[in-house]
């Protein structure tokens, strides 16, 4: 009867886990990156004299606080032609980027190809709360063109990022003057040839699920090890070398599991403080207890005299 109850509980728990995992997996299939209507709706129209920058977020270096972005000039109409990886301006063009690292000025003479630019933006945020850490980065860019007398040209920024590995995020246009979301001010910026884009990032659902799975693996391993040791301490099971081998193997595996955490969080994040280090410490204590019991107790590596059939005792072995 008791075995049936345990089996039933385990089945319910397994089904709940499968349902939870399926929900998280289906949710993670949805796009992990969202852009606001200004940044996503604009399309290249060859008939319009347009200067645009296609932005792609490539990578977030959370430890150094840098967001790497690729900016590709795109031109249409009298401004020039767009190519697969850049553009070909018909008139002189100047782009300026307010960035942390990389070029701040891109001066393109008429009639020469220009390709993508790698830019580094300041990434604000800290990995302390991994996997619930959040980040924010901004880029400000301006453009001027020889097509008009005073150099003023419309500048459209487009965020064409589809995926940042390990992160979900969203981007939005902001007004340069007050970093607000006023439509008039944003359109005013576009008309004056400048634009400010803000990105916000958090870990993707798949990263959070993976971190939880690996964390659960550590905690369950620690719980199982504690139960084993408790059984040995209470004299229900003998202290054995095999159990010690298991502890050593688990300790060894624990470091491998920590290194497999997605996003490579630095040492000392809260996950380490409250899960990884305590589990390592607990294992050290359990190994010490088991070694001491193995050394001192008379039932070390004791063979089980009972012979079981279908999980139930059939008879007790007798040595002649």
């Amino acid at each position, binding site marked *: 009867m008791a075995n049936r109850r345990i089996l039933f509980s385990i089945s319910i728990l397994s089904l709940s886990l499968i349902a939870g995992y399926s929900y998280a997996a289906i949710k993670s299939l949805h796009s992990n990156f969202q852009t606001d209507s200004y940044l996503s709706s604009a399309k290249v129209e060859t008939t319009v004299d347009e200067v645009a920058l296609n932005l792609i977020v490539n990578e977030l270096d959370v*430890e*150094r*606080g*840098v967001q790497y972005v690729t900016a590709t000039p795109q031109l249409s109409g009298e401004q020039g032609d767009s190519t697969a990886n850049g553009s070909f301006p018909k008139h002189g063009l100047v782009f300026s*980027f*307010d*960035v*942390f*690292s*990389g*070029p*701040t*000025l891109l001066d393109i003479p008429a009639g020469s190809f220009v390709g993508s630019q790698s830019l580094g*933006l*300041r990434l604000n945020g800290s*990995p*302390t709360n991994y996997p619930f850490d959040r980040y924010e980065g*901004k*880029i*400000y860019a*301006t453009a001027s063109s020889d097509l008009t007398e005073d150099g003023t040209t419309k500048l459209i920024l487009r965020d064409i990022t589809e995926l940042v590995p390990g992160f979900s995020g969203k981007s939005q246009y902001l007004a340069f003057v007050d970093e607000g979301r006023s439509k008039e001010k944003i359109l005013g910026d576009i008309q004056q040839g400048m634009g400010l884009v803000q990105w916000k990032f958090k870990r993707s659902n798949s990263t959070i699920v993976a971190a939880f799975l690996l964390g659960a693996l550590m905690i369950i391993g620690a719980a199982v090890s504690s139960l084993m040791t408790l059984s040995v301490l209470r004299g229900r099971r003998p202290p*054995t*070398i095999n159990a*010690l*081998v298991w502890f*050593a*193997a688990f*300790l*060894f595996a624990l*470091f*491998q599991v*920590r*290194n497999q955490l997605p996003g490579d969080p*630095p*040492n*000392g*994040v809260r996950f380490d*403080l409250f899960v990884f*280090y*305590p589990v*390592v*410490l*607990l*294992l*050290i*204590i359990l*190994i*010490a207890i088991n*070694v*001491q019991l*193995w*050394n001192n107790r*008379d*039932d*070390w*590596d*004791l*063979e089980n*005299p009972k012979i079981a059939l279908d999980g139930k005792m059939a008879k007790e072995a007798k*040595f002649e």
Partner: protein
Amino acid sequence: MGILLMIAYFTGIFFLSPGNTYVEEKLATTLDCTDSSWRDLPAAFKSPEQNCPTVAEAIVDVQSIEAGKNSLLLANLRIWPAGELGGAAVTTGMAQRSIDVEMESLSETSWYIAAKRLIGGRSIEIPLGTRAQINNYPFDRYQGSWRADFAPSGDYTPFLSTITVSQRDIYGWNLEVGTTSFVNDERYQKIVNREGDLGFAWKVERSGIFRISVIILILTMALGAFAAIILTVSIIRERRPPTLNALSWLATSLFALVEIRSRFPGDPPYGIKLDTFFTYPVIAILLFLIIIHSYLWVKRDDWNMKNVSSSQN
């Protein structure tokens, strides 16, 4: 003992930080044009139109510290112009006058900032002066200083230079940043210099949490060796038989030991004091015990002997 260890650990993490950056107040606060102290500034350095002193403010973000193979402090330098020099944008600023920057770095040391342009930033690589300190890992300490010189270029406009260091925590390190003095330094809301000199001094050591994580790893290694010694002594004294299971355990411990050493945080190079006085002796002890154990397993008649309960007799 185990409970005490756990209590000590959780008390430790409550009081210790994974990484902390302390920047002296005058270096930590950014330029505030509205501060009353700027009233005493000579008129030549004031911009009445913008109601702000003419200052080139260097913003330094310390990004990471690499001790060991590279021994570098990696940072980023940005410049926020104020007053006649220009205005701040989002990350840096728009320069109205051109500026020449000379800075200490293992990479680029000269930076020309053109007028009427967005300024941007530059990476700086500062060597950790006392490189041999890695030998004292995880109690290694480093210190050094960095300086730069700002000079006007093209149309001359007298300006002041100042520096701000961001209080961004760096994982695994306690960083302390202080001011360095130059001739002609003047104290207002910030310390400014008419000659364009600026810099900062820094001291850095491993954070408390970093040290705790290393100590946990050392404890693990020490326990492995201690348990192996107890096991072998028991076998030598003939209280326990030499078994293949015990040999497997010794081998697993040895394997785990090498793995743990390779996972030490901060990736310290092999051959430091910790290795000389701890890792290598522990590996040698384990090897020695494996040899003893193998010898006893071959030689003794109680090899793989089972423990039999009284009910089995």
